[in-house]
């Protein structure tokens, strides 16, 4: 569907995106993940034709970005970060304007706007000025803008930033719903969002791709090592360390909190692909410590993300 090759963007001397190449298949929800300033927005802006790449090629279906920009724009719906809409317009007028520019005729316009109003929950704000809307409501209007003529490709730049948890859940639901038939590319620095919505993840850092894989594969790769988290009363770190070190498979023990009268919190790092919960339980049962918290943590996307993007 979309093929990106050696895409590079320089702002004067600063290299924002450095030789990125990846493909996006039809019907895929792709998450573009990266810390702030990694080049996510720049990549999306080049993809939508807003910025001209310094070098590299983008092709969408059979169209080349350089030659058929207008055709590509017709296929794409784009929601920029924080939905910059015209302040002085009414929501209805704005959607009507966008529908016109998208080339919808009069009858289709009204029915499509109606559908979008239901989908994005704009019922009560249609006759309010955009400048009066809260951030979340603006984001929804922006989403309606992006989906106006039912585009084949939907590009969303941080679609859930600044929203409350209910709105986030709603917007994710909408994205998943669209993603059943359409190609969706969304950028974010929120990891749970990618876990919740995306099929595939491209992680970029300082303009370069550091990971590009299906969600399950990344998770598998991540799940190879895990930690056991323990909160224990009436024990000192020294004792716990001695006792648990003796168990085969324990790689390290890290103290998280130790208070004189409170519980001792430790994290036991386990060797990859071994479940040590049983042996840890038996070891603690032999003592007179009081175990008040005991759970295993698997390395999440968050850990992979941090490992891949952290400065050395």
């Amino acid at each position, binding site marked *: 569907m979309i093929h990106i090759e050696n895409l590079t963007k320089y702002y004067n001397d600063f290299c924002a995106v450095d030789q990125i190449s990846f493909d996006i298949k039809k019907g895929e929800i792709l998450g573009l993940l990266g810390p702030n300033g990694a080049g996510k927005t720049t990549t999306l*802006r080049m993809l*939508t*034709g*807003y*910025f*001209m790449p310094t070098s590299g090629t983008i092709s969408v279906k059979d169209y080349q970005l350089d030659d058929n*920009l*207008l055709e590509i*724009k*017709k296929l*794409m719906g*784009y929601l*920029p970060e*924080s939905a*910059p*809409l*015209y*302040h*002085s*317009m009414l929501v209805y007028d704005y959607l009507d*304007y*966008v529908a*016109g*520019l*998208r*080339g919808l005729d009069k009858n289709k316009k009204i029915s499509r706007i109606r559908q979008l109003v239901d989908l994005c929950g704009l019922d009560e704000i249609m006759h309010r000025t955009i400048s009066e809307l809260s951030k979340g409501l603006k984001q929804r209007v*922006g989403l309606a*803008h992006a989906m106006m003529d039912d585009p084949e490709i939907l590009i969303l730049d941080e679609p859930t930033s600044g929203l409350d948890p209910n709105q986030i859940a709603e917007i994710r639901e909408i994205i998943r719903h669209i993603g059943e038939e359409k190609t969706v590319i969304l950028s974010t620095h929120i990891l749970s969002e990618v876990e919740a919505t995306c099929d595939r993840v491209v992680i970029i850092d300082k303009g370069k791709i550091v990971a590009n894989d299906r969600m399950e594969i990344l998770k598998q790769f991540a799940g190879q090592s895990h930690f056991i988290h323990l909160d224990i009363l009436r024990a000192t770190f020294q004792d716990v360390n001695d006792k648990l070190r003796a168990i085969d498979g324990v790689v390290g023990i890290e103290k998280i909190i130790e208070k004189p009268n409170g519980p001792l919190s430790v994290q036991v790092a386990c060797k990859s692909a071994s479940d040590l919960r049983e042996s840890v339980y038996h070891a603690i049962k032999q003592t007179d410590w009081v175990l008040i918290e005991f759970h295993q943590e698997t390395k999440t996307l968050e850990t992979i993300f941090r490992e891949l993007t952290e400065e050395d």
Partner: protein
Amino acid sequence: MQQVIRICSKEFKDYFISPIAYIVISIFLLVTGWFFFTTFFYYNQADLRNFFNLLPITFSFMIPAVTMRLFSEELNVGSYEMLLTLPVTFKDILVGKFLAGVLFVAAALVPTFAYPIFIAFMGQLEWGPVAGGYLGALLLGASFVAVGLFASSLTRNQIIAFIVGMAICFTLTLIDKMLFFFPRSLLGVVGYLGADFHFQNIARGIIDSRDIVYFLSVVFIGLYGTHIVMQEKN
């Protein structure tokens, strides 16, 4: 072409949704009306010459105030990104905004038709110079809109856009009155650059292709400059 019309009508409507149009047009009518009629009875002549004499100066203030928002606001709010990623070309946007500005100038001129109608009742009004004057006003307005659009594309700050636009329009208006600052060899060229000089020719009722070419060139240069500036931004 349809996209141009859609963008133009949106921009034009925007003026009348917000208070800008009403404020600018009423101040324009007040200023021109006041200066025109205070001396009108004194000269005892049934023509609009004084009205058209003053127009380039009034336009130098008024038009940059109208055009300052056209690109600056979009850049400041960021809505330019949403607009440009819709299926429109940059030329559609540019021409649409330009035409909206010209239409606005035309809308501001419509109420002044009351002057010639009023004068026609009082004396023998020659309609040729009046028609020429309005044609000239529209051409002058169009070239100042193009200049204002260019100023607006330079910055996100509307006030800077206004001042830059006004400075350029003002220079174009007054440059042929400042000829004594220039060396003799440049006089012809600099004199030709003056918008007022060309406008007064048309306002006298003489339609000369040189004057029309002048205004069309200013429009073209202004729009082309805007094109270059905006392209450079991306």
